[in-house]
């Protein structure tokens, strides 16, 4: 069996709607500096490989991988980019360590969303150019359609989705890094202006800028570092059909399949019992519910009522998105999943301050790449190595 892999360092900037006065290189440098300090390592000496996560059109630069090495200590080193969410970058690093050829690998992801002047046009470039993009619609109609389908199939309600928003933005009040903490009642959210019905404006997470770096190490190497290791118990990632015409619309098949892979590796058979808390994608409010069901943390149709009953709050049975999620922290582009993993690490290390969850041993981080994709990743982390 391959040796285990640990998270040994995490670092990130604050997340804010804008980041004037700082280049993307400068925010990456800050996150990297913090992560390496956290792991107590020198990247120029101790890191064997680096993985960055970005998409060209989010940056406004072709083959953006060109511009990543210098500010993360990776110049003239093995570096590559994953055109995916930070959790997909993390699984790339995880696999590299499992080969036995690498001991320490760093993963970087960031968002400079505020620098995109035409974000909806850019996102529309991800729609099929022949059959969907010519309709000229805002790409979030895909989420509106999916929410319509999810509510229909699961029996969940808009009210239950509003509870997701209220909870996550409320949790963000306890997270200094978060951009959009707010004290809102579900009723206020329901009354927000319609955006892509049934989605209201407040059902949609707002973008934020920031950078995240995570350092992974083999078990042998992790033992030599000062940092308290948090173990990668399992990881999975999956893509359903990229085509809107043939994918599954009722459920998040990609999340279900990614979770199956992660649970198999982690030896988890009853996730709702074995996982203490979860950071799941909530790019749109309904996605949190849909994802919780796909991850097997709730039965189909039960995530909505459970949320409305408060089961997923900080002091609920299964706290979900204690960080504040994308609705509360801000949507961080490709850094979204990686920051949520940082939250799981902080909770397991008992470093989460005012939002610290009691007695947590196993946490899950899940990402979705957003509209119009059907791609997501799942990583399960644990506090102590299995005996």
């Amino acid at each position, binding site marked *: 069996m391959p040796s285990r892999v640990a998270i040994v360092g995490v670092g990130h900037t604050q997340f804010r709607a804008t980041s004037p006065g700082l280049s993307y290189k400068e925010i990456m440098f800050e996150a990297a500096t913090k992560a390496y300090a956290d792991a107590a390592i020198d990247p120029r000496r101790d890191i064997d490989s680096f993985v960055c996560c970005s998409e060209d059109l989010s940056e406004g630069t072709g083959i953006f*991988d060109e511009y990543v090495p210098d500010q993360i200590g990776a110049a*003239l*080193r093995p570096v590559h980019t994953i055109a995916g969410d930070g959790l997909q970058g993390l699984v790339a690093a995880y696999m590299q360590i499992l*080969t036995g*050829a690498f001991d320490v690998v760093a993963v970087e992801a960031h968002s400079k969303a505020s620098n995109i002047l035409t974000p909806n046009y850019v996102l529309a470039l991800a729609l*099929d*150019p022949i059959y969907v993009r010519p309709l000229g619609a805002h790409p979030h109609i895909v989420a509106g359609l999916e929410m319509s389908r999810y509510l229909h199939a699961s029996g969940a309600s808009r009210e239950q989705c509003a509870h997701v928003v209220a909870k996550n933005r409320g949790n963000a009040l306890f997270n200094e890094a978060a951009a959009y903490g707010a004290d809102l009642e579900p009723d206020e959210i329901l009354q927000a202006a319609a955006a892509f019905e049934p989605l209201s404006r407040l059902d949609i997470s707002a973008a934020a800028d920031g950078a995240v770096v995570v350092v992974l190490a083999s078990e042998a190497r992790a033992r030599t570092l000062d940092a308290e290791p948090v173990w990668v118990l399992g990881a999975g990632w999956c*893509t359903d059909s*990229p085509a809107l015409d043939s994918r599954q619309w009722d459920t998040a098949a990609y999340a279900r399949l990614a979770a199956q892979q992660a649970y198999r590796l982690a030896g988890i058979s009853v996730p709702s019992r074995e996982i203490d808390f979860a950071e799941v994608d909530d790019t749109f409010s309904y996605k949190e519910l849909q994802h919780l069901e796909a991850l097997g943390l709730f039965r189909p149709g039960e995530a909505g009522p459970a949320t409305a009953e408060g089961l997923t709050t900080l002091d609920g049975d299964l706290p979900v998105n204690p960080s504040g999620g994308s609705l509360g922290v801000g949507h961080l582009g490709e850094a979204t999943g990686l920051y949520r993993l940082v939250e799981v690490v902080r909770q397991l290390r008992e470093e989460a301050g005012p939002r610290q969850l009691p007695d947590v041993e196993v946490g899950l981080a899940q990402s979705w790449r957003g509209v119009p994709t059907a791609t997501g990743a799942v990583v399960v982390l644990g506090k102590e190595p299995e005996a």
Partner: protein
Amino acid sequence: MGLRRVAIVGAGMTKFMRRALETGRELSWQASRMALESCELTLKDVDGVVIGTAPDVFDGVHMKGEYLADGAGGWGKPVLRGYVGGGTGVFSPIQGWYHVASGLFDVVLVVAEEKMSTCHPHPQGAFLSIFDNILERPLEPNLIWIFALEMHRYMAAYGISKRDIALVSVKNKRNALDHPCAQVAENITVEDVLNSEVLVWPVNRLDVSPVSDGAAALVLAAEHVAKRVTDKPVWIDGVGWHLDSAYWTNRELCYPKYVEYAARMAYRMAGITEPRKQIHVVEPYDPFSYKELHHLEGLLLCGKGEAPQLTADGVTQRNGDLPVCPSGGLMGVGNPIAASGVMKTAEIFWQLRGEAGKRQVPGRPTCGLAQAWGDLMQVGTVIVLRT
């Protein structure tokens, strides 16, 4: 070095074309299906998919890896798209290698695609976006500028003439006459190259590979599967990649140190101590004629500044002592960026299996190498294959 040995067991590709009727997804499917059929595997046998494709602005699709996923066989599977600019094509099988070597996957489909003809008025317009957004794009550089600057530096450092370099075009375009997928195969002379239109001195039209549409795919398998499906597995014995600083105007351009570092990484893994003796056939990256020479030096297959003599002496001819680009390379077969690196890896695969038809090099080679390069003259990716 890896815990598990990884073999290439199948390969496929489309023709390389200036303009293809097929969409990028269709091209991906054509190459992928051919690769699977070549080893009598089906999509069911595939556990994971690696997609390699370079700037999204060529195909005109944001998150291009998502868009291509179904054509690349990714439906309901773990899919990861990685990229390192022009180095992507050889990085993709490296990424496939770490998937399998990690122990998480038994069969991985590696697919690379580019549809450059989508980009108007000319694909070179897309290359403007690879330059530094603030300090270089305002100067309106053409892609060829930087290669002309590098080529000139290389010529000056070692006293190399354009005539020496033109031999590479002549050789590769002639080799490509035997490649059924070739886009720009022809019998030309050194004089033809020197008399072709000067684009950016010292680069003439016939020193440059064309823009292309095309896809190529490989099937990678763990040892126990490889031995079951073929009696001629080709083993991935060494992989290496390095990315140098983005500040290319701060670096000495006459020698590709990052290629050397990538090669040393791969050689260490493959136990290669005397590359010139131990490697029998090579496919270095040749998007420009001088790059083949530059890369032979970076790969330590000859001394610095010595590759032109090797070429002049006929050593690099298909029937020479060290056949170089027997496929016809990018100069002859064409250059759909990422797909061309996979094409090179496929060529070594076919050569080592004795299946290269009219292109077969003599002497039953048992060890070959493919290499790619890219970004701002910055990245080297190297793969060493053995029978």
